[in-house]
C-alpha cells in the first residue's frame, strides 16, 4: 500500500512538471486529488485496513496529497506567469509611434505676464496693487496732475477725447471743461484717486491700459503702464533710486545699475528719466567684437521710465475727506512716483522688434512667451 502511494506521488510529480498550461494542471488536480481519484479514495477507505497499518498508511497518503497539492500550486504559478508573459507579448506596441499629446498648454499674453511679474516685484517691496478707470476726466488726467492749460499733451492730437453729446446742439451731454471725458493717457490719474481714497502712508502700483494717438513701429495707440506711488513723511529721491534699482535688477539681472537723468514732468519735482545699464553689452556700449551694441546704440544705457518726487501741487489737488484724513499736506508728506511702459520692458527683455506684434496675436508669437 505504501509502495502504491509512493508510486502515485512520483507519477504525479512527473506529470505536474510536464504540464504546460493551467488547463492541464486542472486535469491533473482532478486526476490525482479529485473525488474519484485513487489517493483520496485510499484515504477514505483507510478504516478497512488493519489497525497496525492505518497510522503509517494514513500519514504517508496525507503527506503525498499535500506534496502533490504543493507541486500543482507551484507549477500553476509558473505556468500562469508564462501564460501572462505570453499574452503580454502578444499585445506588442510599436513603441516608435508618436505619443498622444496631453491637452495643449495655454499661455499668458507676454504683456499680461510681464505686468504680473512687475506687480510681484513691487508687492515684494511692500506696495499694493490698484486698478483704475480707463475713461478719465480732464481733471484727473491733467488738471490735478499740475499740467499747464497749454501743455502739449492736452492737444486733440495727443489725447483721445470722447464724444458725449447725443447729437448736434444737444446740451444734455455738455460737460464742464475739467469734466470732459477722455481715454487716460497715462496711469497717473490714479495717483490722485488713490490719495483721495486712502490716508498716508501710501505705497501703491497701478497697472493698466493707456491710450495716445500714435501709430508706428515704436508707438501703438494703446499700451500699458505700471504706475508707482509712495507717499510717507520722509520718502526721498534716493529712495526712488533704490526702489527702481531693485526693480531693474529683478527684471534685467543682478548686475544692472540705474542712473537718474534730470527731466521735466508736470507732476513731479525733481523729475528724472531713469536709465538702466544695458544688459546686452553690460553697459559698455560695445560688444566683445568691438562693434557698437545694437540694443543701447552704443550708449551703455537703456531709457526705461520717467519718475520723480511728487510735486507739492499734486498734493494740493487732493481734498481732505473722512476717507483720507488727515489728508496730504505738502509740508508734511513727501514721496515719489514713476510710470513705466510694460511694452517697452517686454520689448527690451525679449528683443521684440515691433510693438504692433503685441496686438496682432499671431499664435506663433503668443506661444513663445507667458509659460
Amino acid at each position, binding site marked *: 500500500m505504501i509502495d502504491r502511494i509512493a508510486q502515485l506521488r512520483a507519477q504525479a510529480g512527473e506529470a505536474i512538471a510536464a504540464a504546460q498550461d493551467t488547463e492541464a494542471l486542472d486535469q491533473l488536480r482532478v486526476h490525482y486529488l479529485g473525488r474519484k481519484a485513487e489517493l483520496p479514495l485510499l484515504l477514505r477507505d483507510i478504516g478497512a485496513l488493519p489497525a497496525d497499518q492505518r497510522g503509517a498508511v494514513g500519514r504517508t497518503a496525507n503527506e503525498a496529497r499535500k506534496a502533490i497539492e504543493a507541486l500543482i500550486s507551484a507549477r500553476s504559478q509558473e505556468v500562469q506567469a508564462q501564460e501572462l508573459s505570453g499574452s503580454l507579448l502578444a499585445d506588442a506596441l510599436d513603441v516608435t*509611434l*508618436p505619443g498622444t*499629446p496631453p*491637452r*495643449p498648454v*495655454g*499661455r*499668458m*499674453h507676454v504683456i*499680461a505676464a510681464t505686468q504680473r511679474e512687475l*506687480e510681484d516685484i*513691487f*508687492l*515684494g*517691496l*511692500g506696495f499694493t*496693487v490698484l486698478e483704475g478707470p*480707463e*475713461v478719465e476726466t480732464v481733471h484727473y488726467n491733467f488738471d490735478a496732475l499740475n499740467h499747464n492749460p*497749454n*501743455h*502739449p499733451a492736452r492737444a*486733440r492730437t495727443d489725447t*483721445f*477725447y*470722447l464724444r*458725449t*453729446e*447725443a447729437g448736434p446742439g444737444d446740451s444734455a451731454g455738455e*460737460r464742464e471743461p475739467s*469734466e470732459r471725458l477722455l*481715454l487716460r493717457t497715462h496711469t497717473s490719474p490714479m495717483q490722485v484717486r488713490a490719495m483721495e481714497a486712502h490716508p498716508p502712508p501710501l*505705497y501703491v502700483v497701478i497697472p493698466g491700459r493707456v*491710450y495716445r494717438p500714435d501709430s508706428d513701429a515704436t508707438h501703438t*495707440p*494703446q499700451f500699458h503702464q505700471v504706475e508707482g506711488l509712495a507717499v*510717507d513723511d*520722509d520718502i*526721498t*529721491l*534716493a*529712495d526712488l*533710486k*533704490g526702489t527702481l534699482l531693485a526693480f531693474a535688477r529683478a527684471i534685467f539681472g543682478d548686475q544692472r545699475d*540705474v542712473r*537718474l*537723468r*534730470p*527731466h*521735466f514732468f508736470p507732476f513731479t*519735482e*525733481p*523729475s528724472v528719466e531713469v536709465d538702466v545699464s544695458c544688459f546686452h553689452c553690460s553697459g559698455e556700449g560695445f560688444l566683445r567684437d568691438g562693434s557698437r551694441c545694437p540694443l543701447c546704440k552704443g550708449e551703455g544705457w537703456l531709457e526705461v521710465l520717467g519718475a520723480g*518726487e511728487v510735486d507739492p501741487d499734486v498734493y494740493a489737488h487732493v481734498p481732505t475727506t473722512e476717507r483720507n484724513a488727515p489728508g496730504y499736506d505738502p509740508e508734511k508728506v*513727501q514721496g515719489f512716483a514713476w510710470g513705466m511702459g510694460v511694452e517697452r520692458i517686454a520689448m527690451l527683455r525679449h528683443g521684440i522688434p515691433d510693438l504692433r506684434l*503685441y496686438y496682432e*496675436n*499671431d*499664435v506663433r508669437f*503668443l506661444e513663445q512667451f507667458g509659460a
Partner: protein
Amino acid sequence: MRVPLLWLREYCDPPLDVAGIEERLTMTGTKVEAVLHHGVRSPEHFVIGRVVSVEGHPDADRLRVCEVDLGAAHPDGPATIVCGAPNVAAGQTVAVAQPGAVMPDGTKLAKAKLRGVVSEGMILAEDELSIGANHAGIMVLDELAAAQRLAPGQPLTRALAIETDVLELEITPNRPDCLGIFGVARELHAATGAPLAPPPWSTDPGSAGPVDDATVTVECPELCPRFTARLFDGVAVAPSPLWLKARLAAAGQRSINNVVDITNYVMLATGQPLHAFDFDRVAGGHLTVRRARPREPVQTLDGQTRTLDGEMVVIEDGDGPTSIAGLMGGARSEVSSSTSRVLLEVANWNGPNIHRSSWALGLRSEASSRFEKGLAPEACAYAQALASRLMLELCGATLLPGTIDVGTPVADPPPIRLRAKRLRSILGMDVTTERQAHILRALDFDVKRDDADGDDERLLVGVPPLRRQDITREADLIEEIARIAGLDELPATLPARRGACGVLSVQQRLRRRAVDALVGCGLYQVMGWTFTSPDSLDQLRLGEDHPLRQVVALEDPLSSDQSLLRSTLLGSLQTIAAHNRARGVLSLGIFEVGTVFALDTGSGSAIGVREHGALGVLMSGPALPATWRSSDPPKADFFALKGVLEALAEALGVSVDCIPANPELYPFLHPARAAEVLCGGEPIGWLGELHPLIEAGDGAHGGVSPAAMELDLDALVASAAIRRHDYRDLISFPPLRRDLAVVLPERVAAARVEQAVRESGAPMLEDMRIFDVYTGPQVGANMRSLALALSFRDPQRTLSDADIDPVWTRILAALGELGGELRG
C-alpha cells in the same frame, strides 16, 4: 532745437569735446538727442586764395582760367583753377577748395581736366559750403580780408565757419529760456564751470521814451502783457554777411535778407521772436493790438486768407489787420528790397492763448512754438537791444530815439526761501549751502544767505526774469540744485515702509486665478484693440436698439475702423481668430481679459461712460489636436466651451447656470445653441456657438461654428469673493452612492431635473451628476433617459440604505411630477 556748437562755444567754451559737452548737458537735464554735422566734413584743403589773373578758356566761352595765389598752400607759384562764375575777377580774395577737400555732401575733390585745362581746385560759391543758396557767383571775401588781414594760403576757417557740429536738443516745455542759444550756454556754464560770456544783449544802443511818428495801442493787455517797438531809418535791405548766413544755415534757417535774418538770428540767440514791419507801409504809422472779431478774415504772409475768432489777437494799422499776433505776419507790411524805414516789434503774448490759436488755425512756426510756452516779458528788451545793435552794424540804419513800450512792468517776485534741511529731506543726500549758492548763481539766480533759524541753514533766492514761469517754489529750487549737483551722487536706499504690506486683494487674486484656470484649459491669452468700428457692430447683426449699440465714440479717431470703444470682446476675438485662420491655424482656443465700454445716458444731466472688466473666450476647430489614434477629434462646440466655463467657475469657487438665450438679445449666436450665463441668479454673460451668418462659412470648422462666450469678470469675481471658506468634515464618514435612470419628456431641461432632485434630496443629498443621456427607440419618441449619479452624506454617521429610503422616495416623487418614470 538745433544748436551749432561753434555758436554755443562763442558764449561758453568748456575744455571738452562734443561727446563731453553732450554728456554734461544730458546729465543736467538738456537732453542731446543727436549730434549732427553741418558744412564741410573737415576743414583741411579749404584755404584763402587771391585771384592773380583771369583769362578766357581757349575751348569754352563760359569758363575762365584763373591763376590763384594760395600762398604756402601751393608753394610752387599760383594754382591754375578753372572757374565758371561770371563775377570772378583779378584781385579778389576768394575761398578755394584744393584737391583732397571733402565737400558737405561727402564728395572728395580731385584734380580735374576741364575742356583740356587741368584745374587744381575750385573757387567756391555759398551753396557749395552749405552757407546759402546762392550759386550765381563765387563768394568774394575782399571786405573780410581787409578787416581781418587775411592772407592767401591761410585756412578758410580763419574767415568763415565752414563746418560745425550741431546739437539736436530736447528742450522740455518748462524751459523756454533754452529755446535761445545763450540759455543753453548758461546751462553749459552751470554744468561745467566754464566761464560764461556776457549776454549778447548787454550793450543797448537804444533809448527809452516815445518814438516820433509811431504809436501803438494795446486793447487787450491780458493777451499782450508787453509790446515794444523801435523805429529804424535809412535801412539798406541787402543780403546778409556771410558769417550771419553761415550761422543761420547751421541752425537750420534759410537766409532771406539782412533785416529778416536779424530777426531770426536774435530769436535763435535769445529765444524771443521778433517781427519787422516796413514802416512806410504801416498806414497811419499806428498799430493797434486787439481781439479779432468773430469770423474776421485776415490775409497772411503765405497768401492765404484765415478766418479768426474772438479769442485770437490781430495787429492792425489804419487799413485793417496786418498780422495775426504771435503766429504770422501780413503780406502788406512785409520788408522788401525797397524798404527804408523798419519798425521792429518785440512783443510778449499770453502763452495758452497763442497755443490755442495756433492749434485752431493749424499755424505753427518757430515763433509760435516759443510764444506758446509763455516767455518772460523782460526778454522783449533783451531782443530789442541785440537786434538794434545788429541793425546799425549790418543794415547801415539809424535808430530813431525812443522805444515804444506798452504794458505794465511786472514787479520782481519775492525771493524764495530754500531750507537746507528740506533739500536734504527731499533728495536724501547732502549738498552744502556753499555749493547750493554756487549752483544757483551759475544759473543767474540772486542768492543771499538767510539768517540761520536755529540750526536750519537757509538761502533767500531771487529768480532771474527768464526763469520766473518755471521757478516759483522751494521744490523748484531743489530740482535746480539736484540736477546740477549730479544725481549720480545720489545713494540708492529703500523707503522705511512703515505699516506698508504688499498683498493682492481677494478680487485681484481671483482675477489671476481666472487667467490661470483658462491657461490651464490650454487657452492662449490675447490682447485685442480697445478700438472698434461701426461696421463690426453691423457684422454682429445688432439691431438699432441693442444695448451693445450704446457705444462710446472718439472725437478724433486715428481711422474710421478705430472710431469706437468696444462694447464687447467678441469683435476682437473674431479678428484674432480670422488672422490666425488665414495663417493656417485651424484649431484655436483664445481668451481675453479686457475692458468694455458703454454710454451711460441714465445718470444725471451729463452723459457718462460705464466700463467694466470682461472675459471673453473663443474656441474653433478641433478641441484637441488630431493624432494617429484619433484622426478626427471632436470640434470645439457648445459643450466644449461650457466645460471651460465650468472649470473657470470651479477655480473661482462659484456656481454658474446656463439657461437658453433669447435669440433677440444675442443675434450673433446660433439661436438654438446659445445660453445666457447666470451667477447667483443674475445674468453675467453669454455662451454659444456663433451664428453662421456672422462667421463666414469657409469650411474650416467642419460645419461647427466657433463657440464663444463673454462674462462680466467684475461681477463674477465679486460673487466669488463673498464665498465663505469654513471647514466641512468630508473625511470621517463615507458618502453613500446610488445611481438611477429616469425617462422624461425631452422638453424637460436637465437643469430642471437637477433642481428637482437637489431640492427634494436636501439636506442629505450631497451631489448629483448626469452621466448619461439616451434618446432612441427604447424610450420612445420625444422622450429621453437621463442617468443620474447621486451621493448622500450625513456629517454625523455612516449612512445605510435604510437611512436614505425616505429621501429616495421624495426624489422619485419629484421626478414623477416632472413626468419622469424610473427606467429598468
